[in-house]
């Protein structure tokens, strides 16, 4: 039961008939079932085998898509028709969506084979996967540590070699941070690139679906399948089709890369800073020109994020009322039924954010919090735009720390929120960002974040691929796997 290969490896094996989609699916299902990290909430065996069978028929018919027959894992906040979807919460108890998210439909269309649904912080609210109603996921590099969050299960499923790629959602860093903490590629597209239709909404103006993979090219291949206007999501952008892999081989020679000084001053672990500085030097030695830039409002980003995100979440989560689907705890009257249902169905962090958001939107506080946050959001966007007039991309640490111990931060929400200080400004601005492995600190992975201008994902992949080619950090595997 070898690890899952990359898209390129598997696709060529499938074309050479040295394996079949059904065989790949069986292997992935076996790995998922044997997964010791609590990465999976559901292994959809029959569903996956049916998809694999269909993929094999397409391969036999010739000219399949690149992703045809490739096993993947789906964060359980992305709705899947006929496959239970929990969002990591008890409140959705028993909910089976009657429709699939657009991203799932697009991967289905490619012939990719979804193996199952992965663990996550409840409603994607968290940075450690410890807020899952179904228990934390564990980091394959050290099972006593968190894999990051909120897309922890998806990150683990790829980092542990169980599947070739996975989908996550990133609202404040929920793909990039777990990508960094588990030593793989995690990418968040520009807001408006990927349809959110069918993805359980957390914070609508920040959420974006993106891939986890072990290779930059795989992330680009998955994005190629996901990107594009969706008539069901009014916030997706109509853009001309482009080949996202066109610049993978170009290298960074002649590129201008910015290093925002505000990303190296707060509580960053020395080992993380060392690895990131080294990565920046690597890029420079490949011919990129490095310049320090400033994003002065970075300090305010966390505050802005923790107003806008809970505000939107407080409205998005109002629909879980026990009337039409999911959990229902009957009370003597309507209001009591609401209270009991929501009281029993939501976890502590979700309740905390709904209270925060409700407060921020209340009469008398709205102007002071929500309106002000939106103004600062505009400032943050403008600062990024100014910087991208001078540089092609920014390079920063993804997370200020390496994977921390399970339980280490659960009682300190503020410490937990600080995990996302380097990633959430990217969501606030709506920019694309990617995290790639850039070495180890204390034997655990460190992520390098690359941020590009709006819809400049090809640039993002160009920098990431160049770095990946020149280094071997992405080939490192969790020691726990190497031992076994």
């Amino acid at each position: 039961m070898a690890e899952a290969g990359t898209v390129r490896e598997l696709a060529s094996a499938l074309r050479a008939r040295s394996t079949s989609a059904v065989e790949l699916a069986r292997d992935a299902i076996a790995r998922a079932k044997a997964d010791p990290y609590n990465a999976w909430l559901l292994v959809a065996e029959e569903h996956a085998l049916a998809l694999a069978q269909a993929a094999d028929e397409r391969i036999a018919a010739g000219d399949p898509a690149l992703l045809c027959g490739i096993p993947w894992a789906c964060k359980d906040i992305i709705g899947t028709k006929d496959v239970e979807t929990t969002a990591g919460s008890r409140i959705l108890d028993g909910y089976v969506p009657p429709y699939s998210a657009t991203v799932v439909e697009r991967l289905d269309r490619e012939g990719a084979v979804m193996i199952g649904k992965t663990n996550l912080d409840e409603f994607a609210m968290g940075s450690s996967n410890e807020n899952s109603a179904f228990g934390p996921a564990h980091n394959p590099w050290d099972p006593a540590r968190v894999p990051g969050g909120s897309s922890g299960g998806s990150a683990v499923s790829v980092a542990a070699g169980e599947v070739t790629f996975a989908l996550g959602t990133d609202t404040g860093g929920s793909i990039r941070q777990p990508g960094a903490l588990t030593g793989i590629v995690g990418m968040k597209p520009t807001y408006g690139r990927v349809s959110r239709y069918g993805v359980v909404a957390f914070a609508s103006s920040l959420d974006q679906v993106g891939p986890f993979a072990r290779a930059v090219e795989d992330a680009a291949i998955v994005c190629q399948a996901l990107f594009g206007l969706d008539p069901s999501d009014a916030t997706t952008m109509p853009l001309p089709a482009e080949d996202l892999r066109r610049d993978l081989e170009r290298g960074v020679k002649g590129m201008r890369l910015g290093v925002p000084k505000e990303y190296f001053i707060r509580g960053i672990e020395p080992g993380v800073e060392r690895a990131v500085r080294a990565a920046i030097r690597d890029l420079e030695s490949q011919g990129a020109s490095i310049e320090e830039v400033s994003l002065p409002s970075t300090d305010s980003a966390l505050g802005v994020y923790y107003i806008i995100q809970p505000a939107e979440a407080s409205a998005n989560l109002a629909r879980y009322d026990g009337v039409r689907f999911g959990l229902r705890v009957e009370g003597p009257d309507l209001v009591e039924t609401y209270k009991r249902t929501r009281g029993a169905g939501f976890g502590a962090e979700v309740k905390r954010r709904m209270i925060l958001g409700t407060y921020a939107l209340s009469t008398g506080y709205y102007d002071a919090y929500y309106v002000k946050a939106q103004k600062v959001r505009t400032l943050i966007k403008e600062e990024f735009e100014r910087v991208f007039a001078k540089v092609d991309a920014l390079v920063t640490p993804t997370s200020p720390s390496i994977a921390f111990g399970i339980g280490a931060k659960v009682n300190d929400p503020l410490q937990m929120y600080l995990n996302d200080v380097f990633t959430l400004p990217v969501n606030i601005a709506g920019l694309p960002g990617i995290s790639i492995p850039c070495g180890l600190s204390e034997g655990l992975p460190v992520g390098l974040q690359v941020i590009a201008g709006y819809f400049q994902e090809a640039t993002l992949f160009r920098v990431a691929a160049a770095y990946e080619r020149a280094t071997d950090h992405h080939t490192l595997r969790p020691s726990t796997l190497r031992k076994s």
Partner: protein
Amino acid sequence: MDAGAERVAEGDAVSVAMGRAYEIVIGIETHVELGTLSKMFCGCSARWFGMPPNTLVCPVCLGLPGALPVPNRRAIELAMTAGLALHCEVPEHTKFDRKNYMYPDLPKGYQISQYDLPLNVKGWLEIPADGGGTKRVGIIRAHLEEDTGKLLHGQGYSLVDFNRSGVPLLEIVSAPDMSSVTEALAYAEALREIVIHAGVSEFRLEEGAARFDTNVSIRFREGGEVRWPPQSEIKNLNSLRAVEQAATFEAQRLWDDWHAGGEIRSRRAKITVGWSPETGRTFLQRRKEEAEDYRYFPEPDLVALAPSRETVATIRSSLPEMPSERRARLASQHGLSDYDARILVSDPALAALFEDAVGLGADPKVTANWIGGETLRLLRERSVRAAEIPFTAAQLAQLVGLITTREISATIAKDVFAEMWASRTDPAAIVEEKGLRQVSDEGALGAVVDQVLAAQAKAATDYRGGNKRALEALFGAVMGRTKGKADPRVVRRLLTEKLG
């Protein structure tokens, strides 16, 4: 200062009607469903009335996790059309907001509506004023939102039908410019006509597809001060009659409460009340103090709208003729009374029927009478919409022609009309087939008159003796014997001649 007391400087414009104990101040919020084929934010059919429960639903209008709204372009156009017909401005920037509250008929837990940047602002319409002449009632705003589902209450349980959920709704908010219940009714009627004429909605009050929330307050002078205590908002009135009765009741109740030293004297904010047609009374629903905080914020799932000036100009230039203009034109062009013009314009389908029939040569006055008379009577009796009148303008024109050329009598005409309605047959064919042509031949009618005079000799004697009413009995007998086909004027002349 007391609650509700307002010191008025000398010469202040606030006027308290003379001869009445108090002045009524009314403002109306009207919710009207737009006549689109599909819902506001999804592709489900918007024609929900009478459909089996929960058959016109999808993830979007059921508020399922992950569903997203996509705005209905036609609904936005219709909303602008209504606004422009109400002389509103369409701002260059407008957006949707979330209005947050939880209720089982609201699947998302918020309603997509418009808060601070509505699609239409600052309009007006004209109504007949109480003191004669016309009066402008301001339209503060008219914004787009989505309708809710419907709750069906059983014994110990409630069911929700989401067919109506997400149907596009226009909320039209008037200024508190109506100073009487009569003016409130005139406003509601004028608004209904404009909305229907603009082709925006059929304004089906009887189906709950249009509702009025009526704000009522009273203003009066007491001890040299003008007092204007907080208003009552009467929610969800679904007929003009309900508006009339509820507003009348509530104004009097506020007045009585004031004089009984009731809670209105200490209250500082408005209350929300419901109306029970069964008891003829309002009942308290909510005090403002306990009102919900809707926590409006911009809908992040939708992009802000920027209606182009070209679009606005196009819609404005393609607005159909509005009711007041049409009334004036019909009256002057065809010499109709204001009353006739008002009836015809009360529904564009009636006005069109009239204009088409007259265009085919029918006499305007007679045509107006037949539309305002028999046609309306049958529409009401059979609960048929004017748009669904079974006969054509050509058939009506033909009928009017038969009447004005005196080929059929008025009595016969009613039968022909009923037959035309039922069978959609041309009136000329009906007359021909049934032999209903009016008999004016003096020889033939003279013979019948002679028979009647012979048979009813006593009546003839009475008449000659001075009892003029006896003539009616004789006349009726002649009409009876001719089965109503006799030309009444010829019969009368023959009778008086022969009795003279």
